[in-house]
């Protein structure tokens, strides 16, 4: 059965060079993380603390959001709520139009990717310039980010050099990343100065103070949020935390898990627009809070853990499936294990992303490294069930994911029924397994993709059941 995901996968697996490169980068990210966790016991303690912070925040989501909103507003931040990505885009457009702005500079933001804000604004004659180096490369190539922390993870240095040279013929061709970054930075400076609006994401919102926290390494986030007269921040409603004290442990864990850094080069704490005695800062700060299915997810006691995510990307870096197929094959904004649980919940099982819970061997590598201990395999299991569940059945939980049950295929369901019947009738089961052993030399040698790389499995000469009947053991 060919699906969108499977054809993406087939395409990705054919790109040997990309795959080899991806592996090198992913291995490096794994090593960086490992290097940043010197003390196991202390690290586990930190995880406990952060897990509790996120669990508490999501449990009290409505209250914290309310508290955050009133504090942010008191500080002068204009808070907007968007139920859907379209609404969020329209709010951005409205602000742009209000200022007669036709251009904005953008910091890295996965929620803006979720909104598809670049394309939306473009269709209204507004240009967006990505100012994060990785995002800029992806934008030049007219692609989508392949990773949430390293957007251009799939691009080799030479490819990047050619890309930049192609767009800026005036620059001498150069493959040195530092030199390339310098040239891009130079180009960006003027854009930052001229931009009427800067748009960024948010890593955490602090409820008790109304603060927006944004971490980054290039300084472009700081420029986007301080130089232009208007700053628009976009984020998902789940990014709220209760206290300022919650922030240091979360940032510590976030950066170590993501890139192995103890801290990022820039930690931006945004409290308000520019005050009279401030040396810089925008005249207006807008915050757009996007729901897009999040409050629905928050209503389910198992699925809500998905919202604990702090977007560190560690699960992606450690996923053996991602390592094979890369980010684009997922066909979603967020790839890897977190994408495989989050995107189907947002988009529903009828969307192409509905297949993503199948993109896992349940090896558990993601949960092992997740700083806030999201039980990703358990959520995958739950979603696989949601996908094929019978809607009418009187289960103790209502379907929360749109399209629940739509993955149930009559033939597959029948096969499981027959399987269950055989496995609940030991006499039948034993006769069938015995039959398989007797036909061991006559079973098909071609079993599709399985046997394209493997020999067909061959049953033993006799089953264990048979062997043991002749051994002197108790069969009770």
């Amino acid at each position, binding site marked *: 059965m060919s699906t969108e995901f499977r054809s993406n996968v087939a395409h990705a697996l054919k790109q040997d060079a990309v795959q080899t490169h991806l592996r090198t980068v992913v291995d490096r990210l794994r090593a960086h993380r490992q290097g940043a966790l010197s003390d196991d016991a202390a690290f586990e303690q930190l995880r406990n603390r952060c897990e509790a912070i996120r669990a508490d925040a999501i449990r009290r989501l409505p209250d914290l959001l309310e508290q955050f909103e009133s504090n942010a507003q008191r500080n002068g931040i204009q808070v907007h709520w968007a139920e859907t990505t379209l609404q969020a885009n329209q709010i951005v457009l409205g602000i742009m139009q209000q200022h007669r702005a036709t251009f904005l500079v953008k910091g890295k933001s996965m929620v803006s990717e979720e909104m598809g804000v670049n394309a939306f604004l473009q269709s209204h004659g507004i240009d967006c310039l990505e100012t994060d180096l990785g995002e800029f490369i992806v934008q030049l190539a007219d692609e989508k980010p392949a990773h949430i922390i390293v957007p251009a993870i799939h691009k080799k240095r030479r490819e990047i050099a050619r890309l930049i040279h192609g767009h800026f013929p005036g620059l001498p061709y150069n493959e040195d990343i530092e030199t390339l970054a310098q040239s891009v930075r130079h180009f960006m400076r003027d854009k930052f100065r001229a931009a009427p609006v800067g748009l960024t994401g948010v890593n955490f919102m602090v409820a008790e103070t109304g603060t927006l926290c944004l971490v980054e390494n290039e300084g472009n986030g700081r420029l986007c949020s301080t130089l232009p007269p208007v700053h628009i921040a976009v984020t998902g409603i789940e990014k709220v935390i209760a206290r300022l004290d919650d922030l240091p442990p979360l940032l510590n864990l976030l950066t170590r898990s993501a890139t192995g850094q103890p801290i990022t080069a820039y930690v931006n704490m945004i409290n308000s627009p520019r005050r009279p005695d401030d040396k810089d800062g925008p005249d207006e700060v807008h915050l757009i809070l996007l729901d897009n299915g999040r409050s629905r997810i928050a209503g389910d006691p198992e699925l809500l853990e998905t919202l604990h995510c702090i977007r560190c990307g560690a699960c992606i870096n450690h996923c053996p499936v991602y390592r094979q197929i890369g980010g684009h094959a997922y066909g979603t904004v967020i790839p890897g294990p977190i994408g495989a649980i989050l995107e189907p919940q947002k988009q529903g099982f009828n969307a192409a992303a509905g297949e993503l819970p199948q*993109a896992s061997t349940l090896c558990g*590598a993601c949960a*092992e490294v997740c700083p806030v201990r999201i039980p990703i395999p*358990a959520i995958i299991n739950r979603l696989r069930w949601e996908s094929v569940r019978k809607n009418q059945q009187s289960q*103790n939980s209502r379907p929360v994911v749109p399209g629940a049950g739509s993955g149930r295929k009559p033939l597959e369901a029948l096969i499981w029924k027959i399987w269950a019947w055989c496995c609940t009738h030991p006499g039948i*089961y034993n006769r069938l397994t015995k039959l398989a052993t007797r036909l061991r030399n006559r079973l098909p040698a071609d079993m599709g993709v*399985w046997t394209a790389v493997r020999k067909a499995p061959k049953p033993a000469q006799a089953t264990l059941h048979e062997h043991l009947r002749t051994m002197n053991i*108790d*069969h009770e």
Partner: protein
Amino acid sequence: MNNRVVSEKPQAVYFYGTCLIDLFYPQAGIGAIELLRREGVSVIYPQSQTCCGQPAWNSGYRDEALAVARRQLALFPRPIPLVIPSASCAGMMKMHYPALFRDQSDEATALNVAGRVYELTAFLVDVLDIRLTDLGDPVSVVVHTSCSARRELGVGDKLHTLLRQLHNVEILEPENSAECCGFGGTFAVKQPEISAAMALDKAATVRATGAQRLVSQDCGCLMNIGDVIEKQNQVMPRQHIAELLWERTKN
């Protein structure tokens, strides 16, 4: 992790062979039973056992998983350990039966059984404190620790504890040893392309060790990796740890 819940060496245990061993690797089951019996533990093998239900559970077919799992529960009434020569199936019973049977009338039985489940290598090391004498010729083995043993049950090191007792066995680790081999049960059927790519990678690192044999505590991985190596016309016999231990230590 010490998985020990019984304080003394039990006189008898139930043995759960698993469907994969039943059909493809009976020698693993026999080896495991012989090892247990040599330690003075009598083994009960309920002949009505079939499958733990994991394939359906992992595929979202919970009703079917429940029906099959329920049949297995009934086979282990006595309060003695249940030993399983597979971390994957042991993980199903130990870690997932509680969720599968949640709010069912037989939830208590399921919890009781789950609490008595031991993965074989953990049982040999933690409960029996087994001592082995190697009687075999020198051999090099490459070890593949299954994801269930390593991450789900936290008993991945037991394989090494056992192998280190065999003086003529050289233990080799493949590069990237913690990475999944790509089997994943029904994953191999639903996403065969990714599974194949992962299996090829794993087989390459396993082969690169130059070991004479491949050993694991899980037959699903052995089948996946071993069948790739065979397809490549390479000779690297695969063995479940129980079969290897028994072969090298029996008189």
